[in-house]
């Protein structure tokens, strides 16, 4: 099929009534949740996973994706108006967005950040449309050895690059892989680590783990900590009109932001958060008047906002073409596909072209809807900021419990949520990140399967991973990352000594 046939197919899928409806639901919920401080895209997508059991796979992915990129739009609203980032990736928007709002330019800031988000998202989608078929062509030639080493690289990258402590990130990945192995072994059917609980023979439910780690433990840590906002400003259309100077300063930061965001979004382990910080730093560097930054410079708002939305879209490239999630939200998307019996990987584009292109085209629709939702309806979202957390968190728990229970009418799954909520909170107390755990959990079984196949083909020789060129490259990069992680794990004092010795 040609490129334009694919587009036509994608459009026809995306414009079906049910997909339009779920796209709308997704982006609306995404904006809503993004605006609420204390609930990020990750918690939102986890919370909504059970809902997708009751939808067809394309609608489910369209909705989850909408929640994800919608929350980036909403997140900046809380940053600009309250100096409280609604989502981590919009933390940078506080730096210049909040000063703008204190100068009475909140309307302009909101408009410009929504426009930047839209254009950044658009550029990300275009890149995805152009590059995905090329990557799929290469990936279709991968054998089990390449798959195994690619997954190892993806996991190591995701757990070392953007985490505070790479060694703990790797520990969490390994723990996640082990939890992913719970249940019947694919080849022999032996139930592993199931402790004679028949409920565990099919493995631990992804939904229960995600909700426990990102829903329940998040709630425990946030009660009494998160303060709800107080706003007395009214945002009118008149206040949104930018000055000629704003418009002049808008274009280049936006394009640079989109470039930076697209690049970091597609890499494993990096994403919207890093992209927005880098974009801000770059703008400050290239600016002729860096002293304006931090005091309401429009460039300092537009560039990171564009970058994080571009990154949110290009993050789908490795996920949809290789089946390798670069971030936890992407791992949840892969989990949602697997729940519906769709195998992620390069064959997705040829086997389920309707899902692949339909999802991409739904991104366009979603981004247009977001623009409409965020500019004229900004007043509604401002009011959402006033919902106090002590009313919100019981609602979150209600949603978690019913959501999990509704999948199989199983109280056992709710108990698993409780267990992982407790485990997640203890992990948080001892400074262990749950995000890499979930990545390992999703990829673990696939890794084992490919490792076993590769070893069978190579007759038990590990050298196969180095003999195949692509796989060898993956291994080399993995070892470089590991060496860097080890270096970072060394105690500060000895590192300082080593540096002064040089």
């Amino acid at each position, binding site marked *: 099929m040609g490129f334009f046939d694919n587009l036509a197919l994608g459009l026809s899928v995306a414009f079906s009534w049910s997909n339009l409806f779920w796209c709308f639901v997704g982006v609306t919920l995404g904006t809503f949740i993004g605006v609420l401080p204390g609930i990020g895209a990750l918690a939102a997508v986890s919370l909504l996973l059970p809902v997708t059991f009751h939808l067809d796979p394309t609608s489910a992915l369209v909705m989850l994706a909408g929640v994800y990129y919608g929350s980036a739009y909403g997140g900046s609203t809380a940053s600009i108006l309250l100096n409280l980032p609604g989502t981590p990736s919009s933390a940078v928007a506080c730096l210049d967005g909040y000063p703008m709002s204190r100068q009475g330019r909140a309307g302009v800031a909101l408009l410009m950040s929504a426009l930047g988000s839209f254009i950044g998202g658009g550029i990300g989608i275009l890149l995805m449309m152009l590059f995905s078929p090329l990557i799929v062509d290469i990936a279709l030639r991968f054998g089990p050895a390449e798959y195994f080493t690619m997954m190892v690289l993806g996991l190591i990258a995701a757990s070392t690059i953007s985490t505070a402590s790479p060694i703990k990130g790797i520990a969490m990945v390994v723990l996640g892989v082990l939890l992913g192995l719970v249940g019947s072994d694919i080849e022999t059917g032996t139930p592993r680590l199931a402790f004679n609980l028949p409920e565990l023979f099919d493995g631990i439910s992804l939904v229960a783990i995600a909700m426990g780690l990102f829903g329940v433990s998040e709630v425990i840590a946030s*009660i009494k900590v998160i303060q709800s906002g107080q706003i007395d400003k009214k945002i009118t259309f008149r206040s949104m009109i930018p000055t000629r100077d704003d418009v002049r300063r808008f274009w280049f930061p936006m394009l640079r932001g989109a470039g930076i965001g697209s690049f970091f979004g597609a890499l494993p382990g990096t994403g919207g958060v890093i992209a927005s910080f880098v974009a801000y730093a770059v703008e400050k560097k290239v600016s002729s008047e860096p002293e304006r930054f931090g005091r309401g410079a429009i460039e300092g708002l537009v560039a990171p906002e564009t970058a994080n939305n571009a990154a949110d879209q290009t993050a789908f490239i490795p996920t949809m073409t290789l089946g390798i999630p670069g971030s936890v939200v992407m791992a949840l998307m892969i989990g949602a596909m697997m729940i519906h019996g769709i195998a992620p990987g390069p064959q997705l584009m040829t086997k389920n072209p309707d899902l692949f292109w339909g999802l991409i085209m739904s991104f366009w629709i979603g981004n247009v809807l977001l623009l409409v939702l965020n500019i004229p309806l900004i007043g509604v979202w401002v009011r959402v900021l006033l919902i106090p957390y002590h009313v919100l968190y*019981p609602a979150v728990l*209600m949603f978690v419990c019913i959501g999990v229970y509704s999948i199989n009418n199983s109280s056992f799954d709710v108990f698993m949520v409780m267990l992982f909520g407790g485990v997640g909170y203890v992990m948080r107390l001892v400074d262990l990140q749950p995000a890499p755990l979930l990545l390992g959990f999703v990829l673990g079984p696939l890794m084992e399967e490919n490792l076993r196949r590769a*070893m069978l083909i190579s*007759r038990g020789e590990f050298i196969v991973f180095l003999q195949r060129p692509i796989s060898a490259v993956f291994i080399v990069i993995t070892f470089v990352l590991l060496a860097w992680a080890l270096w970072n794990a060394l105690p*500060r004092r000895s590192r300082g000594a080593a540096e002064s010795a040089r």
Partner: protein
Amino acid sequence: MYTRDYRDLIGGGLLLLFGLFVGFHALTSYDIGTLRHMGPGMFPAWLGFVLAGIGAVIMVLGLFHPGDRIEPHYRQFIAVILGVMVFAVTVGAFGMIPAVVLLTFAAVLADDKLGVVGAVILAVVLSVLALLIFRVGLRVPLQMFKWPF
């Protein structure tokens, strides 16, 4: 601040124990197989010991750098976990609405901001919300009320 990072000592220790447990459990309970034909036990056994090793490294490193205090929110922890538990225990026998009500009552204990009246109002609102979202919106066949006796 402590001179040692007790978070890493505890966290690393837990990972060490869990890793050793999984490693030995896999070695003794499942077929290991050969490198060519890997059995169900090989991959978990390797990873279990790798995890134990990393846990040990985290522990040792924790001895040499300072760390923050561990400050658990006991009350929030107990209230939230209790809420999820009462939901799990009651939903099968009594149906969704009673489970939501009990969940709400347990959950509000985590914070002082809502009084008894507030909790009752919230429980009613959440029950209606649950009904609208799951029964009306998503058409999930969940029983609202049940009487097991």
